């Protein structure tokens, strides 16, 4: 006998609807029901919180929440583009816009909210938009192509997101907020002022304390706005982002109880006035009289209903924490707990620095327990402070030390050990520290991605991921999990340990290090991993070890990867590329001409690099000395593009030319590039100097980045572009030239000393115990007492610097390697040939397809430099 499963109908497939489906699957409720989903939008649920990232390159598909096959796997019937238009609670049916009527046994409304558009004249004109769906963004993007000025009505969270998007689309951007400050719900007056200053410095114009009276329309299009203070603004595009309202129409028309100011009334089990109907998320009016416009409370409701449908003990929903941490226009804004100090007897601890746009306020009780706070400009402490708010435990350190800026004498930050097990680490998914620890101890998770999958912590906004990593690492360590941290099969030590051994025992060769400290059998050759790594350590410490400062001398010559061995970059066809150093990206016309002449003479493909220099491709090994003797004669030196070493220090044009510049960024970039050139490190090092807060040099994407302030320089560390982009963290601010250089000296030497092989500063900073705070303690406050030693090591490196290419050209011994064939010096390598493309050359890969191809192509008429002939034919 078969029984028909009851039908569970979900109306609304947004973020909360999707979380509900996940919870149905997790709790097993999915198996008890035939689950039908009606979605209004043409695509499944997507990350609406991350909507703005659509403008920074995430496609609509990237934003989707469900992994491939999710709905099929669980047998969910999803109908896209099928909005529900009426509900008949008596008959238990819902009718769609297309006229289909569906019966249900249980109905869950997750209809979300709609953007509130104030009832002003002209609001429907062409050029007026809201900011809610991917379609809205696509419409704004298309319209902005013909626009110059854009205005956002609403200076709250979404309004500032929208402003960021307009700015990113290249529009002159205005924000109009009715309240006297930005983000009136989350921050106080002083916080709003700090936020405003920073946002204005980015070129967004902020108007507060005025209301929009009307949109001026000409020929059906918006052309301007008029305000309550009778001022006007000419604009081509208006985005309304003045809050949202619950979409309760379906329930309201069906006679379910709704709130006076909207929202479907629910009890603490999310049940509406009809026992067969639940409402969750932004459409619901919770028992505390609030409609929650954040995703985290919606998720709690979704899980609660799923648990009830699975007949499990369900967590009632009585209200939620409104804590938020966001990055708006690049500015951190966080607000948590009792942010406005409404608890009787509460006290404030405030730090405010209008110059850097940092404002921090902690609300505490007289006994020193944390109640809440507001962080603007630097919200790095949010992840540890928020879980402590309201726990009733006194803070482990004085509150004032927690608001002081990085680099101040007594600034501290709390580690994960300060948190009790019941502290909520991930507020989006309500995951406690205890749950995360259990994932490691009870579920054998050993990595952050595993823990994220197991607990859902850190899968939404991501602000807790760093803290998550620390908790996981602490727990693994406490559990005694052993991992082979050895560099390679030859050494059981990490790179950092080998560095210490080499330094302390003054071991100048790989062979000696392998014999005395390796784990490989006697007579081992070492391997392709430890040889270059040890060579790099020896190069970094050469003056200390009294080893040769040239990487092609003695044993070092045999340890280098091919790039270092030929002082050039190996390309796919066996040819090399050449990059002369162009410090700070500044170059004279004469030097540019030399590069052009050399490229032309040797038939090299030329391309501008991302680091503001010029890469010359297609040189064979025997051409390298000829190319470099020309370059060295013209005053160029090695750019070390081939080394795990300092690459470039990019710069913007700075205060010399730019009307916004506040410091001479070019001079500083040149000074830094010349100071650290040739420095061998665990991985490549990139840097940049920006002359003002507009950050045109993209310094925060670099290993060490410098940004000018009116008071000097801010130093950022640990940034990265590439596959895992990371914004650099502020290490210290308002430094003079001397302080800046001293801190970079220490930072780089500390990194070289403690990083793993091929570990960029970004991963090193995330991995190293204590993270940024520890690095700051060591580098800025000298907590280990090694600052002087680090500076001395750097000073010796700088004193020992020589241009590797000039030194190579001067030494016949070093020059002997630059032949294609040891038995036929002067004969070019016949496998390196080129074909034309866009007026330049590219490798002839057909020649390399089989050995026969090469043999067939060998004929005695070959020109000594085949590229010449190719180019001639191309011309």
């Amino acid at each position, binding site marked *: 006998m078969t029984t028909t499963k009851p039908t569970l109908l979900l109306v609304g497939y947004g973020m909360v609807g999707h979380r509900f489906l996940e919870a149905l699957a997790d709790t097993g409720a999915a198996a008890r029901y035939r689950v039908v989903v009606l979605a209004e939008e043409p695509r499944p649920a997507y990350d609406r919180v991350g909507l703005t990232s659509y403008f920074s390159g995430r496609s609509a598909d990237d934003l989707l929440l469900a992994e491939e096959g999710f709905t099929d796997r669980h047998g969910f019937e999803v109908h896209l583009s099928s909005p529900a238009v009426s509900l008949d609670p008596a008959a238990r049916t819902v009718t769609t816009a297309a006229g289909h009527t569906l019966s249900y046994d249980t109905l869950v409304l997750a209809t979300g909210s709609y953007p509130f558009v104030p009832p002003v004249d002209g609001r429907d004109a062409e050029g007026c938009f809201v900011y809610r769906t991917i379609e809205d963004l696509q419409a704004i993007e298309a319209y902005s192509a013909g626009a110059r000025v854009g205005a956002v009505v609403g200076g709250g969270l979404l309004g500032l997101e929208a402003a960021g998007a307009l700015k990113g689309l290249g529009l002159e951007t205005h924000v109009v907020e009715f309240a006297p400050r930005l983000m009136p719900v989350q921050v106080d007056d002083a916080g709003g002022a700090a936020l405003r200053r920073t946002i204005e410095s980015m070129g967004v114009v902020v108007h507060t304390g005025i209301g929009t009276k009307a949109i001026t329309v000409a020929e059906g299009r918006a052309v301007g706005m008029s305000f309550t203070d009778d001022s006007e603004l000419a604009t081509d595009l208006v985005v309304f982002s003045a809050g949202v309202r619950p979409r309760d129409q379906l329930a309201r028309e069906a006679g379910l109880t709704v709130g006076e100011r909207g929202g479907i009334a629910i009890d603490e089990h999310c049940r509406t006035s009809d026992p067969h109907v639940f409402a969750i998320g932004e459409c619901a009016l919770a028992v505390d009289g609030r409609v929650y416009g954040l995703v985290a409370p919606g998720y709690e409701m979704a899980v609660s209903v799923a648990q009830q449908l699975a007949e499990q003990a369900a967590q009632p929903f009585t209200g939620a924490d409104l804590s938020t941490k966001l990055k708006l226009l690049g500015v951190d804004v966080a607000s948590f707990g009792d942010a406005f100090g409404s608890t009787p007897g509460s006290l404030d601890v405030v730090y405010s620095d209008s110059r850097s746009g940092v404002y921090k306020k902690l609300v505490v009780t007289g006994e020193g327990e944390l109640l809440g706070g507001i962080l603007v400009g630097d919200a790095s402490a949010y992840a540890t402070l928020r879980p402590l708010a309201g726990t009733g435990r006194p803070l482990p350190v004085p509150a004032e030390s927690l608001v002081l800026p990085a680099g101040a004498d007594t600034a501290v930050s709390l580690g994960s050990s300060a948190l009790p097990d019941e502290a909520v680490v991930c507020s989006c998914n309500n995951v406690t520290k205890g749950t995360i620890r259990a994932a490691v101890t009870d579920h054998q998770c050993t990595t952050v991605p595993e823990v994220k999958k197991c607990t859902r912590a850190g899968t939404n906004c991501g602000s807790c991921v760093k803290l998550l990593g620390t908790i996981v690492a602490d727990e693994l360590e406490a559990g005694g999990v052993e991992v082979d941290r050895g560099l390679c099969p030859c050494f059981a030590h990490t790179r950092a340990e080998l560095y210490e051994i080499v330094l302390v025992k003054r071991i100048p060769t790989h062979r000696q290090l392998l014999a005395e400290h390796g784990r490989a059998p006697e007579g081992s050759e070492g391997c392709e991993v430890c*040889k270059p790594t040890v060579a790099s350590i020896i190069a970094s410490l050469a003056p200390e070890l009294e080893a040769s400062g040239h990487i092609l001398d003695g044993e070092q010559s045999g340890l280098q990867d*091919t790039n270092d061995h030929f002082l050039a970059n190996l390309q796919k066809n066996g040819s090399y590329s050449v990059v002369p150093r162009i410090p700070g990206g500044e170059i004279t016309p004469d030097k540019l001409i030399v590069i052009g002449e050399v490229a032309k003479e040797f038939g090299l493909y030329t391309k501008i690099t991302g680091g503001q220099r010029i890469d010359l491709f297609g040189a064979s090994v025997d051409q390298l000395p000829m190319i470099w003797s020309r370059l060295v004669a013209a005053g160029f030196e090695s750019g070390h593009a081939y080394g795990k070493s300092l690459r470039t220090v990019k710069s913007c044009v700075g205060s010399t030319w730019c009307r916004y510049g506040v410091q001479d960024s070019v001079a500083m970039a040149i000074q830094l590039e010349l100071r650290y050139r040739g420095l061998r490190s665990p991985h490549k090092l990139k840097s940049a100097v920006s002359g003002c807060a507009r950050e045109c040099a993209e310094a925060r994407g670099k290993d060490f980045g410098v940004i000018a302030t009116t008071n000097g320089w801010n130093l950022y560390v640990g940034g990265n572009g590439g596959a895992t982009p990371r914004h650099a963290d502020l290490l210290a601010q308002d430094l003079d030239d001397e302080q800046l250089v001293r801190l970079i000296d220490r930072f780089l030497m500390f990194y070289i000393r403690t990083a793993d092989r091929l570990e960029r500063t970004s991963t090193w900073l995330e991995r190293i115990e204590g993270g940024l705070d520890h690095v700051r303690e060591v580098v800025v406050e000298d907590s280990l007492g090694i600052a002087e030693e680090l500076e001395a090591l750097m000073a010796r490196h700088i004193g020992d610097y020589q241009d590797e290419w000039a030194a190579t050209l001067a030494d016949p011994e070093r020059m002997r390697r630059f032949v294609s064939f040891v038995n036929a010096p002067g004969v070019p390598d016949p496998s390196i040939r080129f074909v034309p493309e866009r007026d330049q050359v590219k490798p002839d890969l057909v020649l390399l397809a089989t050995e026969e191809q090469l043999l067939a192509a060998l004929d005695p008429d070959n020109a000594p430099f085949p590229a010449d002939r190719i180019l001639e034919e191309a011309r």
Partner: protein
Amino acid sequence: MTITASATRVELLSPAGWSPVCDWDLLVPGRGVAVLLPDGRQAAVFRDGSDRIYAVDNRDPFTGAYVLSRGLIGSTADGRVYVASPLLKQRFDLLTGECLDDEDVRIAVHTARSA
């Protein structure tokens, strides 16, 4: 094949007989050199840390580029000496030509001696 060195010239066997490669001193321990063979093919000749010499094809079968002579040599825990391609780092046993990272791939081995 390997022969422990005592003399000063390195030679390579090809169908045309033994042909000179270079002076022994030109070989850097742990590195290789490229040799142009009379028929236009290329070989890579290596010297290891114990002064043994090896010769294999210079062509990297994974990329087609003639670059194996520019790879670093290493040894496995059981003592097999190999060269790692400088392009994508696949390792080739210098005695057998076997690729240690892909059992379907093998490169030709040549015979070198010091005389």
